[in-house]
């Protein structure tokens, strides 16, 4: 009875914890978007531009001195007057004192000031930059009035203030999790994993946002100095490490026990592990987090699951559209299944033949059959494509020689798909052949002798001895083959190029086109790539479960 109530208590704690985490994340998302937009110079400039006409008219009516007080409210320092001469060259009538103070120390800056004022007057009520400040101009009756702003670095912290909100959230979650500390060790693992993932998410997210902030033009977010970035990263890293350290030290699970007991071997693999973490996991995580952004014209905007909605549910509305997700997914699955079938059939047949002991010139045959796999598939794809050319390709020439008509391979979906298929089958069967050959060597010969003595036919031998013995060796190669064929970019892109009209594109070529042919929609493309990853991961997971179950039953 006690144990049951304990268990239910723990479950309740986890539930509240998850709810709290989700709430914090949503809250931070809202806060972040709001603060970045409002709490920066942007807000003030936005207001000034909106009200600038009123302000300037006030200046016309009440004179420069009175109006300049109004301008000071919006952090604009002072006014320069410019008069447009007849030859369209602006003559500068400065506020002498201000210019002196600005340009006294650096004489060469006066020409830069000239240029900034010129640009601003040219721009008509838009901003131009000068030495960390902004100049806003207003043109009326042949006169150009320019105003100079305060230094940007004062507002630097307010722009970054939004980041502090997110940091506070991280710290809050860690504190709350201490309160909700689950007694059960298994739940501790769950909790610490959630927090780790959240930290990684926040880390990459802030990288993207801050990195992007530097790319925005003057009217957007301002320049962020390196020192502030470093501060943030140090805080994140230290807090994560502290947290992990705290949890690990209190763990009594098998995991921590083995880690501590077998310190030295784990230290040996630490460099390799770091390498994998850097080269495999960080691009993977960055890609997943990038898929939560909408990237257009180089600007990154956080849109939660907007990309996934567009792909999965937007694609659902027009299911037969060749550029939609579901059609492409369907083609990819069919492509993979047909390819693997032929790879296996041809590869296994050739391997069985090559396995015969008395076959002459075995080595020459194996070299010939390895060639398709050995030559880089980029080159072979291009050569095959030229062979499928309607007028000059060798395949059509062969068909004409045999008395058939020329086929236009890439104007029809079926023939284009077949062209891709022939190329990939030619490329892919050596892999299966080599794997099968290797596995065949491991089948003991006395099994076949016993079978022959029992009167089994060749087919029965194949069915009852060869196939079951090959299965454990072939299963990993089939999984690999499926994953490689599912993502076979080179053949599809280079042979058919998705013709006609994108109907032979597979998921990975669609993802490529979104990133590099449609002006850099990296978020959308990353969402495609993440979906591919999830599909293949689920496939792998289910086949593992099935094969494990199968083994357990035996």
């Amino acid at each position: 009875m006690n144990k049951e109530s304990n268990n239910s208590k723990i479950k309740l704690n986890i539930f509240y914890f998850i709810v709290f985490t989700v709430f914090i994340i949503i809250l931070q998302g809202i806060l972040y978007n709001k603060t970045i937009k409002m709490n920066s110079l942007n807000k003030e400039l936005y207001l000034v531009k909106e009200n600038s006409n009123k302000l300037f008219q006030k200046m016309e009516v009440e004179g420069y001195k009175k109006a300049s007080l109004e301008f000071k409210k919006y952090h604009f320092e002072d006014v320069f007057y410019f008069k447009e001469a007849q030859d369209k060259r602006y003559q500068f009538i400065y506020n002498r004192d201000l210019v002196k103070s600005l340009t006294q120390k650096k004489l060469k800056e006066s020409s830069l000031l000239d240029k900034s004022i010129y640009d601003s007057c040219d721009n008509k009520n838009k901003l131009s930059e000068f030495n960390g400040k902004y100049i806003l101009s207003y043109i009326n009756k042949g006169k150009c009035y320019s105003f100079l702003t305060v230094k940007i670095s004062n507002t630097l912290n307010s722009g970054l203030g939004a980041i502090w909100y997110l940091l506070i959230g991280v710290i809050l979650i860690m504190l709350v999790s201490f309160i909700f500390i689950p007694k059960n060790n298994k739940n501790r693992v769950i909790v610490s994993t959630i927090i780790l993932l959240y930290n990684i998410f926040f880390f990459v997210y802030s990288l993207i946002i801050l990195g992007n902030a530097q790319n925005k033009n003057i009217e957007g977010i301002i320049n962020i100095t390196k020192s502030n970035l470093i501060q943030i990263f140090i805080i994140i890293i230290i807090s994560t490490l502290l947290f992990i350290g705290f949890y690990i030290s209190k763990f009594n699970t098998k995991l921590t026990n083995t880690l501590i007991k077998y310190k030295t071997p784990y230290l040996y693999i630490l460099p390799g592990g770091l390498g994998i973490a850097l080269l495999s996991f960080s691009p993977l995580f960055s890609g997943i987090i990038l898929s939560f952004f909408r990237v257009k014209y180089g600007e990154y905007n956080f849109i939660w699951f907007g990309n996934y909605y567009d792909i999965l549910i937007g694609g659902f509305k027009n299911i037969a559209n060749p550029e939609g997700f579901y059609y492409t997914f369907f083609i990819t699955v069919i492509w993979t299944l047909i390819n693997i079938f032929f790879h296996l059939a041809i590869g296994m047949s050739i391997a069985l033949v090559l396995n015969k002991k008395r076959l002459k010139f075995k080595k020459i045959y194996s070299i010939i059959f390895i060639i398709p796999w050995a030559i880089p598939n980029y080159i072979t794809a291009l050569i095959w494509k030229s062979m499928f050319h309607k007028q000059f390709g060798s395949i059509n020439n062969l068909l004409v020689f045999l008395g058939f008509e020329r086929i236009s391979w890439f104007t029809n979906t079926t023939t284009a798909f077949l062209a891709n298929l022939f190329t990939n089958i030619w490329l892919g069967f050596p892999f299966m052949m080599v794997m099968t050959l290797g596995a065949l060597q491991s089948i003991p010969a006395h099994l076949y002798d016993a079978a022959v003595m029992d009167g089994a036919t060749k087919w029965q031998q194949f069915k009852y001895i060869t196939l079951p013995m090959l299965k454990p060796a072939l299963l990993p190669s089939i999984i690999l083959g499926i994953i490689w064929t599912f993502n076979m970019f080179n053949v599809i892109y280079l042979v058919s190029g998705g013709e006609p009209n994108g109907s032979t594109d597979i998921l990975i070529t669609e993802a490529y086109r979104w990133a590099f042919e449609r002006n850099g929609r990296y978020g959308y493309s990353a969402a495609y790539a993440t979906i591919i990853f999830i599909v293949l991961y689920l496939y792998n997971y289910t086949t593992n479960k099935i094969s494990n179950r199968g083994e357990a039953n035996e």
Partner: protein
Amino acid sequence: MKISIILLLLAISNISFAKSLTLWHAYRGKERKALEKIAKIYEKEENIKINLLAIPYDAFDKKLTASIPRMQGPDVFIFANDKIGNWAESGLIETLNYYFYNKKRLFLTLMFDTTVNSMVYKNKLYAIPLAFKVPVLFYNKKYIKNPPKTFDDLISISKKEMLLNKKIFGLGYENTNFFFHSMFYFAFGGKLFNNKKEVLINSKGAMKSIEFAKFLALKTKIMPEEITSAVLTTLFNKNKLIFVINGPWFSAEIDKEINYGIAPIPDIDVGHKAKPYMSNEGIFINKYSKNKKDAIKFIRFLAGIRGAKIRMIDGDQSVSVKSLYRNKNDERLLAFKLQAENSEPISNSPLMSYFWAPMAQSLKKVLEQNIKINKALNDAKIKIEKLLSK
């Protein structure tokens, strides 16, 4: 003692100039050597070091957008004009109106108008044009001595020669590539988009241009099928193709034995001159550069007459300076000059990049899959509008 002498010698040999200018470019081969020559001459005359860095063309844009906002970009860089819209919106490049104002504006009149206009985005000048590339007509002198002036002449010459020799073809150009179809598209007054982001590709001019391309490809029977650049090179080098319309880079791929000439693209008919796309290269200034005055001086040297001469002779570039095309006896120069005056600069708006693939697809649909022109253009229009709105 020895070590200190060595160090001293190293220090002396490494005398660095007080000022330096960093320039990024994507040139290879002859063009790169011409640029290096110009840089050396300028270094000697003006006592300022020019640091050249060659970057592969495909990675250029990404490297710029990553390094410039982080203050690690070059002072000046040379690139094509099609990304000006994107870069201007991101605030990476400097507006040059101020430096070429009034009397200084005379410098810009040295160049072809179309080349200068291609560097303007939203009424601001962002780069000085250096060179342009425009498709022209290459003809095999084995079959014809004087190039045709109209397409009717071209078709009749081709048919005549093809009757005599059944293995050759008359005309070849990449007809499913919108860059080359542009010569008909803009001749008939077709437009792609306007300032309000409206897609205008289903106009009458556009349809007429595709009708003409269809006529050339399917009815006259003088063109090979499924043309790629590899097909054009192979056929022309085997003397199996009389006329090729291709960019100036094609001349590097022609074998030495082939006797060929270059001419402007023939007129389509009485009212319509061919107006192909012109791809322009310019030199830009980084917005965050600290040596803008020196940069402007160098630009005036590189893009002016002296630099242009070296680039034209040593680098084989079609430079943007008008006065260097005065030699009427040089057929090649004359062809490029005439074509430059009748060409359409590639738009530098960020919208342009959405048009290439859908237009290529609609051309493929009409020319290879026999779909109606109207339907193909409307499908492309819907696709592009979807992309623009997302």
